[in-house]
């Protein structure tokens, strides 16, 4: 059978291209358009070039928000990844216990973001919230509306509660795919539990962990609803992350030009970090093969 080459087949992607243009490319270009102009109304606009970008990059409030955002994302990753692996390791593998634990672990993932925020908002209240009340009864003056430390810890706790299950589930499915023979061989080789984890389980988890870390980084970097409902970004601006800064600027103050510029910077940061992370992982694996040759 001879293969037919016909470049007219490219036309077949046209419908998809139109759809993507309508839903993604045109809106994105609109943002680009706003970011380089000062638009007053439908007829009055000035070209501003890179002015908005410079302004945004030099804005101390936004710089602080970026740092806060990185601190938050890295903290939750540092907690959720090891914790998720740990949970996956102790989850039962067979029988009805496995099903029940699986359901319980999955539960937090099914709750919408703003509902999570509301749950924790009530949970941490000093008067009627179980956690807030208990801590106060124990003598600790817990108050997320007054203490930035309390607010931070609570938000991190909330994110860990909400998203560790994702890492745990990914790892669990990966762990289940390890054949019994590996564990049996390890027993016969008299491997310690730590060796079994380090040499058998962890290598099998690498692939899902790359996905897990990427997802969690992107998610946490874009966090909005939960802290917004829980602390409103306060006290002060101590828990105001990037999304919230952006929303305040775009919706609250109607500063469309600067917020468009800021959106693009935000988008590029995520793209950059993800790319760096992905490239680093891929290079690690490549080095491995190169070292062979």
């Amino acid at each position, binding site marked *: 059978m001879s293969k037919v080459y016909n470049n007219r087949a490219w036309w077949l992607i046209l419908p998809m291209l139109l759809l993507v243009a309508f839903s993604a490319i045109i809106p994105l270009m609109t943002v680009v358009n706003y970011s380089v102009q000062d638009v007053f109304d439908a007829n009055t606009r000035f070209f501003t070039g890179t002015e908005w970008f410079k302004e945004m990059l030099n804005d101390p409030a936004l710089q602080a928000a970026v740092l806060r955002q990185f601190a938050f994302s890295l903290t939750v990753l540092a907690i959720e990844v090891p914790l998720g692996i740990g949970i996956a390791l102790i989850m039962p593998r067979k029988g009805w216990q496995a099903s029940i634990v699986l359901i319980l672990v999955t539960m937090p993932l099914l709750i919408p973001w703003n509902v999570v925020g509301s749950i924790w908002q009530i949970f941490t209240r000093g008067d009627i919230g179980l956690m807030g009340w208990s801590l106060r009864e124990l003598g600790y003056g817990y108050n997320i509306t007054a203490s930035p430390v309390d607010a931070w810890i609570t938000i991190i706790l909330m994110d860990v509660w909400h998203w560790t299950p994702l890492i745990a589930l990914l790892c669990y499915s990966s762990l289940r795919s390890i*054949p019994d*023979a*590996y564990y*049996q*061989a390890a*027993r*016969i*080789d*008299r*491997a*310690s539990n730590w*060796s079994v984890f380090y*040499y*058998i389980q962890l*290598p099998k988890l690498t692939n899902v962990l790359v996905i897990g870390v990427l997802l969690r980084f992107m998610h946490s970097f874009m966090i909005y609803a939960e802290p917004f409902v829980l602390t409103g970004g306060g006290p002060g601006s101590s828990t105001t992350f990037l999304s919230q800064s952006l929303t305040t600027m775009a919706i609250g103050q109607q500063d469309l030009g600067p917020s468009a510029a800021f959106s693009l910077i935000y988008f590029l940061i995520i793209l950059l970090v993800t790319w760096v992370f992905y490239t680093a992982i891929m290079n690690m694996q490549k080095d*491995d*093969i190169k*070292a*062979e040759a």
Partner: protein
Amino acid sequence: MAEIVLKSLAHSYVSDPRVPEDYAIREMDHIWHQGGAYALLGPSGCGKSTLLNIISGLLEPSRGDVLFDGEVVNSLPPEARNIAQVFQFPVVYDTMTVYDNLAFPLRNVKTPEARVHERVMEVADVMELTAQLKRRARNLTADEKQKVSMGRGLVRDDVSAILFDEPLTVIDPQLKWKLRRKLKEIHQRFEITMVYVTHDQLEASTFADKIAVMYEGKIVQFGTPRELFEKPNHTFVGYFIGSPGMNFLDVEAREGRVMAGAMELTVKQAVHDAVANARATNIKLGIRPEFIEVLADPVEDGMEARIDYAQDLGTYSILSLTLGNTVLKARIEEGQPVPTGRAWLRFPDERVGLYIDEYRVEPGHE
């Protein structure tokens, strides 16, 4: 070094076994002598892997005892048994190099590094892995990985037996042959007891001095490949060993004659007497296709059979025959005339086996 004894051993995966079918291993006694090369041969699901896992300690038997050198080890975990096991699919520690893989069992028991090096180099040499020592195990081919798995079993000084659970399943045919020879070599060099589980009779007979044939949770015969071929102890061994398997004819004694259906068989008197005296109704005569004499012309004592078809397999042919209403296979060596249409068969007396309730009975010994 160890002699492995299985005493009244039985195992069931069901918590409350009632009928014999509930048992993966039905009560058995067996001895694996120190330094032997054994094969455990049987079809899938006959319980051979279960038996292997009981010996290595991955499973605890429901009943009976496993003894190593006279000591009951039933509840000892595998790590306390000085046994190595090679699995069907190669198990290597992906992130380690081949060297570290081989060194792993030694390092786990805190062997001095100089000794580790010495042993690893020795085993790598035997397994022909020296060139690969620095490579990561995950980048090896399937047969190299399996060699690493085997090497990890050999590297320990204290290993008294190595168990192989169909280790060549994932290996290419040409390499299979090489690895099998390698195993044989290793066995001769290290004098370790080796038990090799397989469902391939060729693999079993090239590797082992003695083969245990398992069927429905029992070892139905334990003998040399030759014994299994010439005197199968059970009809299953007859079917399973040899290609094609043994012919069996349902027989009964009527009016002083041995009949297979309506066909009278010419057999020696002792066989007739044994058939006539047997209380069981399940009586069979068995003869290997290789041992049937097939003649193109009528002869005295010859039984007339119809030839259904002949299959030419190069160096020999397989004839499919109908004798009375029993289908038989006969093997004709190259160069001998292949009759067509009809043939006259003779069963040499010493080649005919008598099977009562599926087990072999020596006529005159009852």
